[in-house]
């Protein structure tokens, strides 16, 4: 190597080094500015069977809300501060598919590698059971926003984990109450639910609630096709043969769509009163393929039932969502909004208490415990599981196609206050049902 070449090499290296230093410096500045952001890992299904029905609409709703919040002043008070207490929200979306094992790994990566300030997510009950012990171990503030299993806070107790949506018992208790209050003939009931924890629990809750509220109801048959079966010919034949007064189902997503499309032409909806515990989320896709007169729950006062109530927050979500995505919002975005708004309230409460600093996980947990806030789906109150598990009002309605607007609507909507369909603190949901709902306060 000639000396000229060597000099050049030195020069180049020096330039590169200088550039590297400059870049590192820039990153350093970035880190300083990062004080002004609040990082949230958002975990929901972006692929797989639950993506289209729950994950994607939820993430769409979440992205929409985060943008609105970062703009500031768009939402009515008390949500008019930009971001979370002035800090810009930075969301890191993560796909929930792949099972609980993978989710625990991803959760650790979010907390330990990406240093998120909070994690908000989880649709699958299995994930919701696996994550909390890890969250407590890592002292990471975590919000479960969607999953249904009551086991999370009935079997365990966690310091840093909160669920901002009511658990699944509410869905089926409300359905049974609807049967009772509207005097729907239900001498015989049949069920078709997916063969996994969600389907099994939903059916058990419904049967137990019916045996209290409509004691004459007799179970004719309980069918448990496997999840993602997609073909229900045999089950529909069986349901038609038993000819029960009421057919209960907690099917969701593609399974529910397939069931409705296959059962419709065979006349199941004319023979039996079909009640879908979580049916609202397929209404945009099915349109007028969803028969009239089906009893529909939305796992909370979500979707069309909330729209009929027309609070300013609901209208804001409804219109912004429709404008952005060309379809009306169903339960998933509502649940995502109540989770993010809950997080916002927790962050701002904690900041008010600590003098405006970015709150630690401990401060967030203290602020979230027993908190309550308004969401598009009504008042969310963290009263169960020592202030870690939310209760919320619910609504059940009946479908009716509106020819004039070309849209599916809900009629005969009944609203249930949170205390009417959720157990009081310290009582397991299934025991509460079996004991005949002691202490329920219904309006």
């Amino acid at each position, binding site marked *: 190597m000639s000396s000229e070449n060597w000099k050049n090499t030195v020069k180049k290296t020096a330039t590169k080094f200088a550039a590297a230093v400059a870049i590192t410096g820039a990153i350093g500045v970035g880190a300083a500015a990062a004080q002004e952001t609040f990082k949230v890992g958002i975990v929901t299904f*972006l*692929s797989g069977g639950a993506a289209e029905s729950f994950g994607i609409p939820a993430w769409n709703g979440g992205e929409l809300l985060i943008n609105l919040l970062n703009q500031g002043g768009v939402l009515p008070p008390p949500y008019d501060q930009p971001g979370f207490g002035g800090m810009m929200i930075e969301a*890191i*979306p*993560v*796909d929930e598919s*792949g*099972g*609980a*094992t*993978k989710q*625990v*790994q*991803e959760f*650790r*990566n979010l*907390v*330990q*590698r*990406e240093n998120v300030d909070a994690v908000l997510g989880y649709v699958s*009950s*299995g994930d919701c*059971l*696996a994550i909390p*012990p*890890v969250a407590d*171990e890592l002292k990471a503030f975590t919000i479960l926003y969607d999953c249904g*299993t009551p*086991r999370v806070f009935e079997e*365990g107790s966690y310091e840093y984990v909160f669920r901002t949506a009511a658990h699944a018992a509410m869905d089926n208790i409300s359905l049974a109450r609807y049967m009772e209050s509207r005097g729907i003939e239900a001498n015989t009931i049949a069920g078709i639910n997916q*063969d*996994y*924890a969600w389907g*099994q629990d939903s059916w058990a809750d419904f049967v137990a609630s019916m045996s209290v509220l409509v004691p004459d109801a007799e179970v004719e048959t309980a069918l448990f096709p496997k999840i993602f079966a997609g073909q229900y010919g045999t089950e529909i034949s069986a349901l038609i043969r038993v000819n029960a007064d009421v057919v209960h189902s907690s099917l969701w997503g593609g399974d529910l769509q397939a069931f409705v499309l296959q059962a419709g032409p065979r006349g199941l909806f004319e023979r039996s009163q079909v009640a879908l515990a979580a049916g609202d989320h397929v209404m945009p896709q099915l349109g007028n393929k969803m028969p009239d007169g089906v009893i529909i729950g939305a796992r909370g006062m979500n979707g069309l039932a909330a729209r009929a109530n027309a609070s300013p927050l609901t209208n804001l979500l409804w219109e912004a969502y429709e404008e952005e995505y060309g379809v009306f919002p169903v339960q998933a975005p509502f649940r995502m909004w109540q989770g993010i708004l809950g997080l916002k309230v927790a962050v701002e409460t904690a900041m008010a208490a600590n003098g405006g600093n970015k709150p630690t996980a401990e401060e967030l947990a203290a602020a979230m415990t027993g908190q309550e806030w308004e969401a598009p789906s009504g008042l969310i109150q963290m009263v169960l599981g020592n202030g870690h598990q939310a209760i919320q009002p619910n609504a059940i309605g009946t479908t009716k196609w509106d020819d004039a607007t070309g849209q599916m609507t809900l009629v005969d909507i009944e609203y249930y206050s949170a205390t009417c369909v959720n157990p009081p603190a310290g009582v397991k949901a299934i025991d509460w049902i079996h004991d005949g709902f002691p202490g329920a306060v219904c309006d």
Partner: protein
Amino acid sequence: MTEFIFPRSIPLACALALAVLVVVGLILPDWAMFLATMAFSKGMVALGVVCLMRSGLVSFGQGLYYCIGAYASGLMATWIGISDIFLMSLLGIIASGIVAVIFGPLLATYRGIFFAMLTLSLSMILYGTLSKMSVLGGTDGLNVSAPTFLGYHPEGRALGLSLYMFTCAVIVVYGGLVRTLFDSERGLISLAIRDNELRVEYLGTSVRTEIAVTYIVAAIAGGIGGVISGAAIGHVDPEYAYWTTSGEFVFVAILSGYFSIPAVFLGSVVLEIVRSFSNLYFPNTWQMSLGIFLLIVILLFPKGLGSLLSRSKKPEKKQ
């Protein structure tokens, strides 16, 4: 020089590997340590697949033992309150060993697709059974409390580090034993079965026995892998026995090849790293990026990553 990089003595190689792993563990950040623990525990199961692959058999149901190990230890932790990782591992070994002793001789008469399908169906039977058992949490599974180490109850980073160390010790010891087995007469016969089963029989060996023994060795590796995964994750569910989980182990085995045992654990780590980062940076297309990565690896290293590690060894053998 190659002697130095690849010591011929297995105990020496093991000691070296353990020393390196321990030192690396001390400096790893928490997330990477957890990733390594998981990759190694899954690597144990993949090692089982590799054992069988040497005889030309692909087990598509190694998740069976992964799941048995995880549930055996998880249930004992919940029911009797055992949380000692050594005792849990022993339970996992016993449970998976018993099941393998029952099914091993039966499966040993099948080859090719029949062997693959039978192993797959056994693991899916376990999956179906566990999914139905609401006592065990059904499809949602159950939580496993944090492991203890001979009366030591670590928390935070110490817990992760202890489990990592335990895992390293396990893989080094088991890896060493398996290497010894591979190099032994029995191990070489397994390799010969792949080439010509009939000849091996004529040489006076029972191919069935050889395969059954290999199957049991593979099952025990799977059981231990399951125990460690369950303890690390803190949760077990029937997904452990699902066929996609087993498929992942087969993939690691293909990725690593059957030439080198360290390659199996390396392959497992590589897969975990790729998945972890693609999941974060391509939340919507992580499966695709993972698939592209797998394709590239298969095209570039048809005999697996192990062929890289053992290449320098081959000329020596010819001397």
